[in-house]
């Protein structure tokens, strides 16, 4: 949220994508977050991903809760409808929006306070229901807007800027998402755009509940020596499980010469996720192995990033509810109202 409107200057030679938009068309208002905030990098990655996916911005509905992270949807996709809801309860609003119109793409942006504390129940239930969306948590382990309190993802033993030690064990949203039935689960780092952009692209194209936990250091309150969510800590302990490329349907698949095992996963919409596995022992289609793998590495203080789990055949809440193909929001009385004659029959049965 900002008072400053972004100047609409377009360089004449800016490259356009297949739907005729430049990268600038995916931007929003000027960010009011602190300079160097990881969240702004994530916004940039979302812009890049949507541009590369040739998504028409107005076909995206972006929803958030409350907090620094939840302010960010104002800073990208300015031509999209956005909804800054209440603290921790973006998932339910997104679920309702999705039920009303299944034709749009849903992007949920949340923070660790938003999703792991007040909104943990809604986060869990949205994952379990398989709402089709890309759910991104911008995770900095701290409450920034209220000036530096620990959030529920802060690691046990980590220190606040004031030197207070956190005694509580952390909520691991990735572990929860895996357990609850999310069908696309990834972790990334706001400082690793090369990894984050394809992960977001994969999540946007996914047919079910896609979750990405993005470690996004808070430069003001949680970027110091004692923090496990600082730039330095994550850079030192980042253990990427894979590097991925996302290839949209019909796009030429170029030859791959990089070392390491290559896994190609075709999504329901024909898009392709190509994973260059850095860890040969990780199978991204095995939910339980992914949980094990992540926990084992976490025990050694490592932050495992990359695509941890994927079900390429995932379905969503609409499939479960067997809703019609036409958006419910567009149905009129002719499709919804049983009419006076049916009502007279009901009356007759009640006499």
């Amino acid at each position: 949220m900002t008072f400053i409107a972004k100047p609409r200057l377009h360089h004449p030679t800016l490259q356009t994508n297949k739907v005729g938009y430049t990268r600038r068309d995916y931007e929003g208002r000027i960010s009011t977050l602190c300079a160097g905030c990881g969240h702004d990098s994530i916004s940039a990655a979302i812009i890049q991903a949507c541009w590369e996916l040739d998504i028409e911005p107005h076909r995206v509905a972006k929803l958030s809760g409350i907090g620094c992270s939840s302010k960010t949807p104002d800073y990208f996709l300015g031509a999209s409808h956005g909804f800054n809801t209440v603290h921790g309860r973006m998932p339910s609003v997104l679920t309702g929006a999705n039920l009303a119109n299944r034709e749009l793409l849903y992007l949920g942006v949340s923070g660790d306070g938003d999703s792991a504390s007040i909104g943990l129940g809604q986060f869990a239930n949205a994952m379990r229901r398989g709402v089709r969306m890309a759910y991104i948590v911008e995770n900095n382990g701290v409450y920034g807007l209220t000036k530096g309190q620990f959030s529920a993802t802060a690691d046990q033993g980590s220190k606040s800027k004031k030197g207070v030690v956190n005694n509580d064990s952390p909520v691991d949203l990735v572990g929860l998402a895996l357990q609850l039935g999310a069908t696309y689960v990834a972790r990334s780092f706001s400082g690793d755009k090369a990894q984050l952009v394809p992960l977001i692209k994969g999540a946007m194209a996914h047919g079910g509940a896609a979750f990405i936990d993005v470690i996004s250091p808070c430069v003001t309150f949680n970027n110091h020596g004692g923090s496990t969510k600082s730039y330095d800590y994550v850079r030192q302990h980042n253990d990427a499980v894979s590097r991925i490329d996302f290839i949209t349907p019909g796009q030429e698949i170029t030859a791959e010469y990089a070392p390491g095992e290559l896994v190609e996963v075709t999504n329901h919409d024909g898009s392709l996720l190509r994973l260059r596995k850095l860890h040969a022992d990780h199978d991204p289609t095995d939910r339980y192995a992914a949980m094990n793998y992540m926990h084992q590495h976490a025990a050694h203080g490592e932050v495992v990033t990359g695509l941890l789990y994927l079900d390429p055949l995932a379905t969503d809440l609409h499939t479960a509810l067997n809703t019609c193909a036409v958006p419910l929001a567009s149905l009129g009385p002719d499709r919804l109202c049983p009419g006076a004659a049916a009502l007279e029959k009901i009356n007759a049965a009640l006499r």
Partner: protein
Amino acid sequence: MKRIEAVNDFVIKFANVNGSGSASANELFAKAVMRMGVPVSPRNIFPSNIQGLPTWYEARVCEKGYHGRRGGVDMMVAMNPQTWDTDMAEIEPGGYLLYDSTRPIPPDRFPEGVHVLGVPLTEIVNEAYADPRQRQLFKNIAYIGALAALLDMEDGVFEKLFAEQYRGKERLLDANMKALHLGRDYALAHLPCPLGLRMRRADRVGDQIFTDGNSAAALGLIYGGATVAAWYPITPSSSIPEAFEKYCHKFRVEASTGQHRFAIVQAEDELASIGMVVGAGWNGARAFTATSGPGVSLMTEFIGLAYFAEVPVTIIDVQRGGPSTGMPTRTQQSDLIACAYASHGDTKHVLLLPQDPHECFEHSAAALDLADRLQTPIFVMTDLDIGMNQRLCKPFVWDDARSYDRGKVMTREELEAGKDFGRYKDVDGDGIPWRTLPGTHPTKGAFFTRGTTRDPYARYSERGTDYVYNMERLLRKFRTAAALVPQPVHRPASQPTRFGVIYFGSTSPAMHEALDVLQAEGVHLDGLRLRAFPFPESVPEFIAAHEKVFVVEQNRDAQMHSMLVNELDIDPARLVRVLHYDGTPITARFIAGAIRKNMVWHKEYA
């Protein structure tokens, strides 16, 4: 010994044990009365419990057509030893007691002045049926059979009902018929049939239907075009989404594909259920949730967001006894203020106040239109008494020419044509801004919805002038709502009077009876039945036209009274509170008594 003599005008109460299968037998009795053309209004009085605790079914038979609870019991069917003493105490002098005489009961347990009728129900059914569950269930049908003889009910009424109910299920039909006849034959052979209480065919039901408010509300939501329902189970509202789902499966499944033109989610809690409704409303679907007081408490933050962000939301609040868990299975009208001003900050919400199942249907359908038109939460304030009890009411009506009022939604074409779009701009002077739905246009009309303040073009703003413009516009919108909501219904006295009475919702049937009773005594009052909040202009006019106005409601703190004083700047001295809040439905006896007592101070009634 004097005995009550009454034809088509008495109260019969069944004292049963929860889970014993008595509900369907008792309902059968009420339906038989209705089929004889005699108005009947039954009420379930039940504990917050699954099985084993006492439950009562009280049916008022009233040829004059009063549906309110009368008070007192003319005949008790006492099937629950646990509540024997309290049940006996309720029987009016000269009244009747029907009980299971299989095991002897000491004579001192029978109250004096009551006609005791013993039927060895357990013995009769044990001889006729071997299966333990059948023995239990058919005991209930057998006492209905005995009543048929004792009250001299028309031959064939029950048989016809059974035939309809068990069409194609011959074994069930025969077994039920047998139990009915066992009870009837015993009564005819051993008891003084008929009693002083009797049934006689009348023609007072007409084309009325017999249904409960929750089913009716669900049907109204179907007809009104709700497509997204999100809910969390809570008594006494749960049967609304359940009935909605049933009707959806009947009317909203595409024949060719089997796909659904609806989405129903049982959410994880009330917060999520209202959140889904807000999301669906924002995205253009007609969405609702149904809940009760504790659910409304949990929803209030979202209700504030929907009010301020201007999102259509429909909430059916089936009120029960509060505060907190209060009396979950008893009735009250005590969520008025909690709903009218739900959430922090300055808010005002539209309340609709149906009086019976017919209006539950009408108001639920209207709520969806109003929510879209006004882009705001609309509450349909029913209660347990209307919601969970069957009542005779006018049949449901629908005009096939009626289309849905989707309100001010700017289309792609209008945006394309260059129409100015300011999401929170009052272009029409009615306080209602235009909105666009997500996905409408590639470059125009997108806006950011938020709970923080903004300027008329939906841009974040903390300027005081922008905030005040917005808040004043919301107030203007609320005034516009007063003309759009269902208007009050006047019930003038038969002669000019200085006294008036204001009432609403489920109080209405008892109120109409009380007005007739008082009029017969020479006490004349003009009645005004409120059907919505905000109050239309006719409400202050009504109050101004009377020296004293009684406000009758079912809560402790006179919530409607407070709202009238607060919203209309009325001198509180002009309004007299008549309050009933013990969890039972208000009676005409209570209302007439309270008004009479107050009137003693006025020598001249009119």
